[in-house]
């Protein structure tokens, strides 16, 4: 045995480990690198299209902070993004994919509008809570359809939630163009809901108080996930459903519950859009929130605490997109490419990081 090198005495137990997976500095570093790389690649694309990347990025990144209007717009945009991201990540923690966020949002919005229109003469104390609550419940019930199909018949929840999105488009179309149609709008839109159903505005320029409610929801979600029994059971099911089941967790119930809660939050987002932003139901109001919510949820790696912050970053990009189109003449869709690239580079950094860790040892 002449060739054997003395092995480095590595005791695996002695190496310090952080709570979950990698340490915070490493995580932050991988995010920074992913964002930078995404901007570099987007910049190349923008330059290739014949525009100035510097102008484009200045428009994207500064619009939200240049004026208080920009900031309020960003915050308003943040509400549905954060809520839809949670609607995706909460079931994800139990290993279920809710791809029906926009359907749940639209059904919630439809229910809210229906209450707001039919009871339009009620005072705020009565109507506003009802509008919000009905939206929340409607979203939850709509997600429950998919959850029930999954639990009872084993229907794949990805499939059912996606398909229910199309059903919701039909519902909105019917309500907005047949039931309470506003013919003056020139686009399928309902008549406005009663003033009592509108969320109060605060400050100048005015910000609707739905923002406060969304912040509360985010805080509550984190507390529930980390500090309560259902949250613990939810995470247990997500890590190893078999082991959770063996130890008395009813995994079917947890899965159904997580989808219903996710749907309720998406419905709540719809209610806030109706009561805070539009004051009525408009076809197409779901925008691309579902897609962005999924991207946010994945960038946040399913971490409920990270979701609001990531959502804010994406809201900044979204608000900057239209400014970029105006000032730098770059199509606003470019921002979606940037967002997707951030996610891709982040996933890529996981692979690279794992390789580096392996080879450095």
């Amino acid at each position: 045995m002449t060739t054997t090198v003395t092995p480095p005495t590595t005791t695996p137990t002695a190496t310090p480990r952080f709570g979950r997976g990698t340490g915070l500095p490493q995580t932050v570093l991988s995010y920074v690198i992913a964002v930078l790389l995404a901007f570099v690649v987007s910049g190349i694309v923008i330059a290739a299209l014949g525009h100035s990347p510097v102008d484009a990025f200045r428009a994207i990144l500064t619009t939200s902070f240049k004026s208080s209007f920009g900031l309020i717009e960003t915050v308003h945009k943040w509400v549905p993004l954060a809520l839809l991201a949670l609607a995706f990540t909460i079931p994800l923690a139990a290993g279920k994919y809710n791809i029906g966020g926009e359907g749940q949002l639209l059904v919630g919005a439809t229910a809210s509008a229906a209450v707001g229109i039919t009871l339009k003469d009620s005072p705020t104390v009565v109507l506003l809570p009802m509008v919000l609550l009905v939206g929340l419940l409607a979203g939850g019930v709509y997600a429950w359809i998919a959850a029930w199909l999954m639990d009872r018949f084993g229907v794949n929840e990805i499939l059912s939630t996606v398909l229910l999105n199309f059903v919701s488009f039909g519902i909105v179309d019917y309500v907005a163009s047949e039931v309470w149609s506003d013919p003056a709008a020139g686009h399928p839109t309902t008549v406005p809901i009663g003033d009592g159903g509108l969320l109060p505005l605060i400050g100048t320029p005015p910000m609707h108080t739905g923002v406060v409610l969304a912040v509360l929801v985010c805080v509550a979600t984190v507390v529930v996930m980390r500090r309560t029994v259902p949250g613990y059971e939810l995470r247990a099911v997500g890590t190893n459903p078999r082991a959770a089941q063996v130890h008395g967790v009813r995994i079917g119930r947890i899965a159904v519950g997580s989808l219903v809660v996710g749907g309720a939050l998406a419905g709540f987002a719809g209610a806030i859009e109706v009561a805070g932003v539009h004051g009525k139901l408009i076809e197409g109001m779901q925008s691309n929130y579902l897609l962005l919510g999924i991207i946010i949820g994945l960038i946040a790696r399913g971490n409920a605490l990270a979701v609001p912050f990531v959502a804010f970053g994406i809201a900044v990009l979204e608000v900057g997109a239209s400014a970029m189109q105006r000032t730098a003449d770059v199509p606003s869709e470019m921002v979606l490419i940037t967002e997707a690239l951030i996610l891709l580079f982040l996933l890529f950094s996981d692979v690279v990081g794992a390789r580096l860790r392996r080879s450095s040892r």
Partner: protein
Amino acid sequence: MTSVEETRRDVSQGSSGPLLSMEGIRKTFGPVVALDGVDLTVGRSEVHGLLGGNGAGKTTLMNVLYGLYRPDGGTVLLDGAPVDIRDPRDAISHGIGMVHQNFLQVDTYTVTENIVLGTSLPSWPAVDLKAPAARIAELSERFGLTVDPQARVADLSVGLRQRVEILKALYRGAKVLVLDEPTTNLTPQEVDSLFGSLRAIVDEGMSVVFITHKIRETMAVCDALTVMRDGKRVGTLRRADTSAAELATLMVGDDAAVTRVTEVVTAGMGAPEAARASGAPKQYLSGEARDLGDAPVRVSVRDLVVLGDHGVPAVHDVGFEVRRGEIVGIAGVAGNGQVELAESVSGVRGLHSGALDLDGEPLAGRPTAVWLESGVAYVPEDRHRDGILPSASIMENLVLGAQRSVRFRKGPLMDWKAARRHAEEAIRTYSVKASGPSAPAAALSGGNMQRVILARAFSHRPGFLILHNPTRGLDIPSTQFVYDRVREAAEEHSAVLLMSEDLDELTHLCDRILVLYSGRIVGERQRGHYDQYELGHLMAGLEDTA
């Protein structure tokens, strides 16, 4: 392809040096040094035992030989000439055959089809299996590996499937046959027959490497032995020059630890002298029945019928009682309903019919959480699949199952401070090697994972403890640890049900052994009346004549 005849010729003509020698083999997996400059020399016509606890590197070394792993350093010499083995195909062409613990067989094929699969056969105008079948029949007769070449593999028992694997290696012209823990899941009768075949094989000039962690087996069949520990070779001896006690010392290493763990390595050897020195309670060692006095019945199972995963009954009309402080064993070859029985009596799998009472309280039909609250604790066979939350911390893992208990609750919220205190204490008392309560469970070794699972099971103060293969894959100190804890539970009046594939373990620990065959209890033996051959008879499904 080298035939057996050529091998014999090689042997008679070949040099007098060793048939196989591996020198300075080194293999690392990330930070873990699995093999640290290991030497192995296997002579001609010998059964060479490769002895060591789990995690000692025995299987890794043989996987290097078989081309499944590329070594980081070291050389392999066959017949004195260095060989480069890049994959199993190379290994086979050099005359190395290996029988793994898990057989890779096509269930729907016949024995012959399985054996010729992967060899080159003339396939035009049609595959002719007559000649191979005749050769297989000849081989199986010559080496005492009786099996019908036309039988479908799916219909064969584990013992017969193993013969198929050995025949497969011989058919491919193996000069060196590696068997990885071949006695797992064999009845004592099948083990004897296997050993007979091994002798016939080496008498024909081939050599066998026999991987095991049981000293008893090496003493029974091996000519020479290499003992491994922690990825290193700690000694190579002739069987004639050594003793079980010396081997135990080599396997365990640390002299101080050896007295504590000898009972594990000598389990089933009928050598209680060594263990007596360990100071373990006398009643466990004497082989005499332990007097439980008039301890009341704690668990009573009646007319239990449990469905398997495909909706067909896997357990039929099983009934038994376990008294306070009693350890009852369930023996049987794997796949005879053990998983279904374990899961049903632990409340994980619903009962199709029948009843289970714990301290007089009927539990059948109640949700799993109620069983847990009533004091049922289950240590599952597959700890990765059923036992732990891999990405969660040790602390979170220890709470699992008790998350609704007041111990870890503070109002509507979970009391993570209490959970952390509990985890710190458990890590201390159960000697879990981990950096702390926040370490992810997936980073633990098998033994430490099992300690966490045991800590969780015992923190529920179990009235009824079910353990399924609790020491599988554990190193020697961890196995000893499990034995100690099981006894402790019995002394604290738990009713213990121990299901194991290891007969030595059962006869060593249990007050009473029930034999499970095809989902039925086919026999029962009391401590003091254990006869492994008799138990083996029952495990093989042969009628209980007693």
